[in-house]
């Protein structure tokens, strides 16, 4: 989407889907999943796959990438200890081994994790991949020059809080003591607390091997050394045009996940979203073998596509763990009053909001904070039933109880970006819905940077604002902890616990679940915790986006997992 350029590049890279959801998406009732689409003929090797993207791959350094499950284009070049299961739907939300022989062997309390590398792993130059390379890859992600990754390594690894990477202190050859490499194939991680979800973390690109001899610091991203099925042939204009070709030293026998059908992958970015969708629908020439990894169908395009059978057959639908919500800051009046928060919860008109976000095909109304997927431990609940169009009567009643019988005037803060998430369209829909309940909403639209600074700072956080949260991996942990764990309130930096909730029982339950290495069991308890927190009405979940993406006529073997919600280009074939 054109305005996605307004969004910080760093954030854009943070999670492919997190940002790129501009068009938002949702699967209509008549849509089956992506499985049916394009799967009718057998895929073959060969050909060139074109990727049409709006965001250039400006960061292509494994240390700097903030990806979910290893990313899409990056995961063609970087293999990691573990990776996401490349399957459609729910099965795709599982973590599987990649470079390692398994998803990790924890000690009893899940504070030490041990991995063994498969045999015969090689870089694009034919040299062997060692566990030290993985350690080095992680270490360099601590360098301020290569900032950008997720916070978990710093938070979890023993003694990592002050570590500044291998560049600062050249004499310290031992590096990060929390990571041990007893031999070339073994790597051991020591955590400062139990983390049952460590295998999920090991999917991130920081776990990709980087040969120390080839490290060129900030210039490494121009040509990162490939461990995956493709290597970088050219990287122009800071990731705007990326050409990948087969890495002959990669062996399918060590990689069960990546299919790598095309011979060549041509990534062209910096395109306007409407242009991408126009090109994909026209599917002319090279565009017939084209996909996009970051651009959804917008509402207008969807309106056109649904009327055209041929086009509709070329739409991939996916779900990514993501929630758009209204956030309250309970330290600010009148949102300190739980009744006011509940009244607003009742008054919200989710059908207006869903329409503003692109309609029922692109957004599913949300009543839970957790995404509606099994891997997150989704447990359906609707604590303040607003119905389709909002329950204005109930809201008025609650307001009366709260002492606002004559109505209430509040200010809703939102961003001025055009992402259909925290953007003015959604804010005006909320404004219009609350009007019926006697709540006058004034809109405060902030420029993207200003908005982020304000809502993520404890000092400047507004009382009532639009926000969203996306999963770093498909589990309740990274979804609930940053938002509701009282110990994660950051006083002097970017704070995501917008409700400033510091509830001992919640904190304790989070700790307890983190100890579990049985991820299914953990999921159930995350779901229960979500409902429990929901009672406090600190957020009003609005909707979960659905991704609808076009692909070219010649594209086969379309796989869309619930982990990323988008077509996996490691599975796509164009012959």
């Amino acid at each position, binding site marked *: 989407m054109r305005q996605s350029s307004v969004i910080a590049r760093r954030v854009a890279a943070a999670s492919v889907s997190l940002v790129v959801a501009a068009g938002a998406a949702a699967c209509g009732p008549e849509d089956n999943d992506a499985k049916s689409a394009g799967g009718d003929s057998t895929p073959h090797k060969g050909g060139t796959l074109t990727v049409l993207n709006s965001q250039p791959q400006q960061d292509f350094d494994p240390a700097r990438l903030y990806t979910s499950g290893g990313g899409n284009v990056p995961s063609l070049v970087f293999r990691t200890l573990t990776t996401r299961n490349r399957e459609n739907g729910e099965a795709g939300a599982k973590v599987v081994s990649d470079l390692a022989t398994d998803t990790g062997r924890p000690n009893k309390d899940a504070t030490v994790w041990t991995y063994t590398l498969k045999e015969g792993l090689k870089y694009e130059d034919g040299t062997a991949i060692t566990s030290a390379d993985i350690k080095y890859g992680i270490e360099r992600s601590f360098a301020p020059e290569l*900032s950008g990754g997720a916070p978990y390594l710093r938070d979890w690894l023993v003694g990592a809080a002050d570590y500044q990477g291998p560049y600062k202190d050249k004499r310290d050859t031992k590096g990060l003591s929390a990571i041990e490499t007893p031999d070339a194939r073994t790597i051991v991680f020591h955590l400062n607390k139990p983390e049952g979800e460590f295998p999920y973390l090991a999917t991130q690109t920081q776990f990709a091997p980087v040969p120390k001899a080839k490290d*060129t610091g900030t210039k490494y991203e121009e040509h990162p050394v490939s461990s995956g099925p493709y290597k970088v042939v050219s990287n122009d204009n*800071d990731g705007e045009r990326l050409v990948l070709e087969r890495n002959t030293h990669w062996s399918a026998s060590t990689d069960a996940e990546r299919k790598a059908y095309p011979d060549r992958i041509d990534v062209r970015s910096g395109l306007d979203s409407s242009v991408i969708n126009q090109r994909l629908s026209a599917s002319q020439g090279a565009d017939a073998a084209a996909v996009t990894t970051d651009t959804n169908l917008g509402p207008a395009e969807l309106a056109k596509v649904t009327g055209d059978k041929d086009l509709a057959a070329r739409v991939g639908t996916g779900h990514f763990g993501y929630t758009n919500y209204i956030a309250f800051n309970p330290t600010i009046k009148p949102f300190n009053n739980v009744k006011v928060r509940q009244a607003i919860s009742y008054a919200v008109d989710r059908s207006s909001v869903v329409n503003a976000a692109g309609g029922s095909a692109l957004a599913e109304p949300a009543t839970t904070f957790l995404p509606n997927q099994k891997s997150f431990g989704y447990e359906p609940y609707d604590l303040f039933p607003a119905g389709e169009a909002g329950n204005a009567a109930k809201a008025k009643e609650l307001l009366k109880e709260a002492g606002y019988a004559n109505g209430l005037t509040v200010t809703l803060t939102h961003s001025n970006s055009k992402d259909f998430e925290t953007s003015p369209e959604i804010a005006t829909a909320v404004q219009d819905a609350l009007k019926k309940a006697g709540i006058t909403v004034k809109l405060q639209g902030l420029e993207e940077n200003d908005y982020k600074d304000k809502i993520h700072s404890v000092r400047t956080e507004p009382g009532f604002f639009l926000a969203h949260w996306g999963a770093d991996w498909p589990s309740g942990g990274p979804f609930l902890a940053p938002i509701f764990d009282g110990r994660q309130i950051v006083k002097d930096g970017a704070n995501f616990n917008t409700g400033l909730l510091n509830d001992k029982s919640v904190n304790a339950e989070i700790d307890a679940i983190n100890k579990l290495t049985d991820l299914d069991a953990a999921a159930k308890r995350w779901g229960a915790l979500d409902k429990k927190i929901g009672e406090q009405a600190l957020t009003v979940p609005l909707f979960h986006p659905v991704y609808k993406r076009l692909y070219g006529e010649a594209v086969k073997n379309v796989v869309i997992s619930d982990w990323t919600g988008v077509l996996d280009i490691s599975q796509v074939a164009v012959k």
Partner: protein
Amino acid sequence: MSGFGGFALRRLVGAVVTLFAISVIVYVVFYVTPGNVAQITCGPRCSPAQVQQVAEQLHLGDPLYVRYWHFLEGLVAGQDYSTGTSVQHCSAPCLGLSYQSDQQVTELILAKLPVSLSLVFGSMVLWLILGVGTGVLSAWRRGRLTERLLTGITLAGVATPVFVIGLVLMIVVCGQLQLLPFPQYVDFTDDPEQWAWNLLLPWLSLALIEAAAFARLTRAAMLETLAEDHIRTFRAYGVGERSVIGRHALRGAFAPVIALNANNFGSAVGGAVLTETLFGLPGIGQELVHAVNVVDLPVVVGMVLVIGFFVVVANVVADVLYAVADRRVVLA
């Protein structure tokens, strides 16, 4: 033109002063723009300590004047920077490093400039042909239906924003009629033919909008010339209308057209933001909008300076061409 040296020198000094002033203004304006640069660079989930490290890395803690001084130093003497594993040199004139991508701004500009210049130069040719042609036609057929029709068309160009014209052109020409491929930038040196085909629509979109001004100006200048005494002379000597219009009246429109063209060329280098964004051309405008959004000060300053440079140079060129076109003008 004995005074040309002095003229050139004075204009050069003026240009440098102008660019200097622009850089100061941009520095100050973007200094106060909201947005935590270190946080944006580091990522949303960075801890305060990491953000602090990044801020130090980028010298964000320094006072404004110190940072500006560094900028000037880099411009004159170049600067060294670390990639972590080695020390690199950014040679003068160094516009610094992008906060976001650690690339040298000068390299970034050099990479983007050909795109913007291709776009603007090409569409300049088109807008001159379209604009001047329309202007001549409507001056010739003044008062008749042709003129009104042409006036209407050129005004439609003025009245329609480029993003609407561009999108509709693209949908119709590339999507429905499939006459052209969807534009994607191909470097001229790689394949001149593809370069031209791919830029055709962007050229046309930009030209349609700019042409209107030229049509109006050409028409007005020609009508003004047509009312001048020397036109009467040639008519009184039996010179035909075609020659009067095509030779004498058109010649009179040269100077103002040149002046406007230089003016528009300069501003179009930066002003093609919309066209570049819409067609996904990786040019200066698109990059600049992006840099503004992420408060990437070195990139913003560098690119604005480049745009300012083109505007200033275009104006000097305009003055010179104007003087050449109109020998009566003394360079002053």
